[in-house]
């Protein structure tokens, strides 16, 4: 049985742990991917103008 009510609890917020992430490598890798995504999409967008 699917409990729909508990999905009303989901908060839309990125919460960074005060004591640092359990896995800093993941954060660094995702951070690099995010920056690369911004750079590539900007370049692509400027080329298509």
């Amino acid at each position, binding site marked *: 049985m699917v409990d*729909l009510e508990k999905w009303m609890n989901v*908060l*839309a917020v990125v919460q960074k742990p*005060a004591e640092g992430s359990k896995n800093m490598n993941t*954060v660094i890798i995702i951070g690099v991917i995010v920056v690369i995504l911004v*750079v590539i999409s900007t370049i692509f967008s400027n080329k298509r*103008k």
Partner: protein
Amino acid sequence: MTTEKKNFMRTILIFLVYLCYTNLFVGFFDLIGFADSLIATFIADLIFFLLIVIVYRDKIHESFVAFCKNYSWKKKLGTVFMGVAIIFGINILGGMITEALFPNQNMNDDNTNAIYELASISTFYTIFKTLIFSSIAEVLVFHQSIRDVLKNHNVLFVLIAGLIYGLMNIAYSDLSMISVLDFIRCFLFSVVISWIYLKHDDNIFLIMLIKFVYTLIPLTILLAELGG
């Protein structure tokens, strides 16, 4: 420097600061012998929040004025409630899929669990983080800054903003199969927000308001649970 280059530099700088500021502040406070990492994190969030609001103050003001002038009360309420209802629909659909695939597990994502932990320590910080920070600063980081560099490419903007929001939501959690579903849920959340943003002439204030109203419901449930 052209406006495009300026926007690009600003967006990259915002993301670099967003990715590092908590660690930098906590590290700095630790260095000067201030042991309370929660207060250090709060100060870091507060400073980041103030800085990003200052950076985008003109855009916020401009979209606030447009929202007040161009929308009737009926349209204001209708748009906000439609946005909130779609987001809840996506969450519940995501929940049904996750629960069907992974029965009998704690279905809250790690960010929500972290907020529940935070709420047991500081109600004030929890309210600030969920209602104010997430509705204003996160919307500016994940939507406005990306829109600045992808002004003429709506589909690309929706996809990139969704990918980045989804990735950032799982970055601080333990990666597992559930993270993939969390990623998809956050991606869809961002797609809805971006779509509303584009439909309403890039009105950033409107999506801040939708996120604020959306967050108000789970936050009320959370605080009621703590009070009970």
